[in-house]
């Protein structure tokens, strides 16, 4: 891979063409997972635990099986044994035993909503009625809902085999301890003029994609299974399902349907192996679709966190020390993104002395999954609030404070290696120079807050093919499900290299049998890594076009040049020809042209974003209105600026929802109370202003087009930015999410009480 960055003129990249799948999406023709139907198809439903923590003593299915229309029922007895070990699967590590236990509870249920059995019947209504006839006997255990409850001495143990890296053979709920440190923390704090120390608590929140999980499984008598589903990674569904079902990977084909949002939540499996098991038992295709309540109770939200941050700065605004303790709720099985959170929490700043301790803790909540910059929004809420406070103590504008401490090329990352070319300061400068930040915010109970965020982005494996058709147009085949418009970017990259108009390039997302392995659509990696594969595949096609033209002209390939879609013979007066003119000659010059490339992409460029938010607080109710919001983000190079802006706006909106109202609300029995969009409150159209965007383009030297991932970092700053804005509006520092009206009002009243007491004390 050439490390040089293309900065030349682009013809297609940077323009805003209509997305190739657009018409299907506005006419209702696009087929999402739940839209698939097959002759003789059965409908499946899943029985779920009403208890947060209980031993399953028995499951009786006889009555349910007798209900007319019921064709099969599966429980964990139908699953093969799976190994208790760790294996790499794309962005995630996988423990097959834990995965199997999450698909169908083995001997214990570990959260409200944990799957116990699945039914296939001739209609979804009959399958649902059958669930009520399955009799499960439980021995209910005390639920362990928080990090504190899970780590106190004598806490009930969720997983009897769980051991961590520090406590030897002692059963525990702490799955892992991570530590990162550098320099001399004590000396650092000694040098500090100001020290701020606060404890933060964030609620578990959900990605909130509008499309529920779904799967159609078809098992054939020859042992071959096909799964249609909405997923971020068809190849991961294949390998994870193979683990759970004890099937060879090669016996499973996964066809990725259109996907109605994922944000990380559709990188694992829930229904897919059940659809195959039920199909195997019945001989018919079986479709399962989760209800919204099932999505909230039993898919993978992102952890609630407890984070203690202590940071020190000198009077002139230089950060000198940080001491951080963080513990994340992994859910019922190990594997929260707490390590990522730890590596990101102060990543935007140069701090010479720090120690970060991070703990992954199991609790009786659903197993968490990825959510947009996993683990980092929680972390940034804590650190960026403390930084805001330090800036205030130093009397420095919060943006200037960030710029003063910002990491630059060559500065060591938390994990050690130095940064390459990055655009953090540029995002700060962009906000500082924005019309928004320069505007004056007037009015009572209004405040402006800023915050920044960092996310690594991911590389990993991708495959791509570029086929040149007989009329000189092309198709681009990749294995990356398109959740935000990435197909448009893939077509644009191929069109740029081939010198074709983008409308002459059709992109498709292929199934697992039709393209080489491609890792999950996550980690902001599609435009970066799959884009790299597409770029290489298109270059491969160009190389072949040159060879063919050389053959036609009876020249050597190095005597042919390819520019803007036209082949030129060097030297003599041979008239140049276009791909279209050359295409009819393919049969006589060696057959069809397919460019191919597979990459395990290196050269990932991290992303930074800085966000400014204006709020107005109703001091009598604690309700917050977002008045104005602007985000600046480094995209490296924006292939399709509209969809880059879309990622920035969408992440910002999710961050605002996280800040203000979203939370998992469990009662004292560990039952989730808000299982629908009525009480799991994601922002509506009326809750948000227009979200202004500034795309910063600081090219990533590790990508041929300068691309960085853009999908995730936008969600990182808003929670802290809102908290900082609330502080400036009403004088209270919020240290928990959501900053919902009851919580904010309580803080305001407490603050008002405190200030009144102070005033009256002064008056006395």
């Amino acid at each position: 891979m050439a490390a040089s960055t293309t900065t030349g003129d682009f013809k297609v990249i940077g323009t805003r063409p209509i997305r190739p799948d657009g018409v299907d999406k506005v006419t209702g023709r696009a087929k999402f997972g739940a839209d698939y139907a097959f002759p003789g198809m059965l409908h499946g439903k899943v029985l779920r635990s009403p208890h947060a923590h209980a031993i399953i003593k028995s499951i009786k299915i006889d009555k349910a099986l007798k209900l007319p229309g019921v064709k099969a029922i599966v429980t964990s007895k139908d699953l093969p044994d799976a190994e208790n070990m760790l294996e790499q699967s794309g962005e995630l590590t996988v423990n097959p035993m834990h995965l199997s236990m999450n698909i169908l509870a083995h001997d214990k249920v570990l959260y409200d909503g944990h799957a116990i059995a699945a039914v296939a019947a001739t209609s979804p209504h009959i399958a649902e009625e059958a669930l009520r006839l399955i009799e499960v006997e439980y021995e209910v255990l005390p639920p362990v809902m928080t990090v504190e409850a899970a780590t106190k001495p004598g806490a009930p143990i969720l997983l009897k085999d769980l051991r961590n890296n520090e406590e030897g053979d002692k059963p525990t709920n702490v799955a892992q301890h991570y530590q990162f440190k550098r320099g001399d923390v004590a000396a650092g704090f000694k040098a500090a003029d100001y020290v701020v120390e606060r404890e933060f608590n964030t609620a578990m929140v959900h990605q909130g994609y509008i499309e529920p999980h779904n799967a159609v499984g078809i098992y054939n008598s020859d042992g071959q299974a096909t799964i249609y589903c909405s997923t971020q990674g068809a190849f991961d569904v294949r390998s994870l399902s193979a683990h759970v079902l004890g099937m060879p990977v090669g016996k499973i084909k996964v066809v990725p349907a259109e996907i109605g949002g994922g944000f990380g939540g559709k990188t694992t499996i829930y229904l897919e192996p059940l659809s195959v098991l039920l199909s195997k038992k019945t001989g018919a295709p079986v479709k399962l679709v989760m209800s919204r309540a099932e999505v909230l109770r039993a898919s993978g939200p992102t952890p609630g966190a407890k984070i203690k941050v202590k940071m020190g700065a000198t009077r002139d605004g230089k950060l000198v020390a940080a001491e951080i303790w963080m513990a994340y709720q992994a859910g019922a099985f190990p594997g929260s993104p707490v390590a990522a959170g730890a590596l990101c929490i102060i990543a935007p700043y140069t701090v010479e002395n720090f120690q970060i301790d991070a703990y992954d803790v199991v609790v009786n909540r659903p197993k968490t999954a990825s959510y947009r910059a996993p683990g980092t929004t929680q972390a940034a809420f804590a650190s960026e609030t403390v930084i805001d406070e330090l800036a205030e103590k130093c009397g420095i504008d919060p943006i200037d404070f960030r710029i003063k401490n910002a990491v630059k090329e060559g500065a060591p990352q938390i994990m050690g290696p130095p940064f390459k070319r990055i655009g953090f300061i540029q995002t700060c400068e962009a906000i500082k120079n924005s019309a928004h930040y320069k505007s004056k915010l007037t009015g009572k109970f209004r405040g402006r807050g800023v915050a920044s965020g960092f996310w690594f982005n991911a590389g990993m494996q991708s495959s791509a093919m570029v086929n040149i058709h007989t009329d000189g147009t092309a198709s681009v085949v990749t294995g990356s499900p398109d959740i935000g418009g990435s197909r448009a970017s893939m077509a644009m990259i191929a069109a740029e290299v081939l010198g074709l108009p983008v409308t002459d390039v059709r992109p498709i997302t292929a199934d697992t049998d039709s393209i080489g392995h491609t890792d999950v659509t996550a980690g902001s990696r599609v435009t970066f890594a799959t884009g790299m594969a597409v770029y290489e595949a298109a270059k491969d096609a160009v190389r072949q076009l040159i060879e063919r033209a050389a053959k036609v002209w009876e020249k050597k390939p190095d005597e042919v040049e390819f520019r803007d879609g036209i082949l030129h013979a060097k030297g003599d007066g041979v008239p140049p020809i276009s791909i279209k003119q050359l295409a009819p000659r393919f049969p006589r010059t060696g057959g069809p042209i397919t460019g191919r490339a597979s990459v395990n992409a290196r050269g990932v460029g991290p992303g930074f974003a800085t966000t400014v938010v204006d709020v107005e607080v109703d001091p009598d109710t604690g309700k917050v209105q977002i008045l104005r919001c602007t985000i600046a983000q480094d995209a490296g190079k924006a292939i399709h600026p509209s969809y880059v802006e879309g990622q920035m706006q969408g992440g910002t909106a999710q961050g605002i929802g996280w800040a203000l109202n979203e939370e998992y609300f469990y009662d004292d029995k560990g039952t989730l109370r808000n299982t629908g969009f009525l009480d799991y409150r994601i922002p509506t159209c009326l809750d948000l202003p227009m979200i202004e965007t500034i795309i910063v383009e600081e090219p990533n030297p590790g990508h041929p087009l300068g691309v960085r991932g853009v999908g995730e970092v936008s969600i990182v700053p808003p929670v802290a930015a809102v908290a900082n804005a609330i502080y400036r509006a009403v004088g209270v520092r919020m240290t928990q999410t959501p900053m919902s009206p009851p919580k904010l009002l309580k803080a305001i009243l407490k603050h008002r009480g405190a200030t009144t007491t102070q005033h009256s004390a002064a008056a006395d």
Partner: protein
Amino acid sequence: MHAINYDAPTTLDQAVSILKTHGENARPFCGGTDIIIQLRAGVRRTEHLVDVKKIKELQVLSFDAKKGLRLGAAVPCIEISESDVMRRHYPGLTEAAHLIGSLQIQNRASVGGNLCNGSPAADTTPALIVLGARARIVGPNGEREVPVEAFVVSPGRTVLKPGELLVELLVPAPAPHSSDAYLRFIPRNEMDIAVVGVGAAVTLDGDKVKAARIALAAVGPTPILASKAADAIIGMKLDDAALEAAGRAASAACSPIDDMRGTAEFRLHITAVLTRRVLSIAAERAKKN
């Protein structure tokens, strides 16, 4: 959902007869925006849904300056919020109807259905109560009228007996120098259920309050007529002290719970805040009438 039967009678007699035949196993069905969800979730069970939308008595929306308002139980909320007559004479009830769910919900849900669902958080119920509305009920044993404040008996349960049907709501004509208002508190700006709702109707005599009614939603097991809160301002000028007193009395009338929508403590505070705000709005409107 379990299997159900569906009927769509076109006359009151037919409806009552079907409801009587099936007794406990039948339920009137209107906009469906609550009951379909409840049947799906298994929190309510019924064998027969009796769709009452085709009965013309339930679709009446008429206003008479002397007799007041007749509001058929099946009139969708959207017709109320789009009605100039309603906005002029009953602005509080109109805004309550306008607050229910999204436009998609308002096109289906009715004020009568909102009442029969028996939720303590129903937005239109306090708005009806403050107007002195009465519910006209028809059943196998004839007709009866019940004041709206007595209609809901516990969460999800009403005075309707098996076989009975709410036909219409009768609302007195507004007195001179009077008006009404309704405010609710929700965490977002749309799509939520009231954490607290407060309705008020005020009649002025010069700058003093001649008559008033205040009703509360989502702060007890049923909608609450807060008479003591109204008593606190009757005969008074609506100044800050009077508003404070009304707010305190309204809070005192509540018995809220902690839940995912808010803590009891929060609800008590918000009840006082909204009572002050809604009284000011109602009084401003009354001055113009």
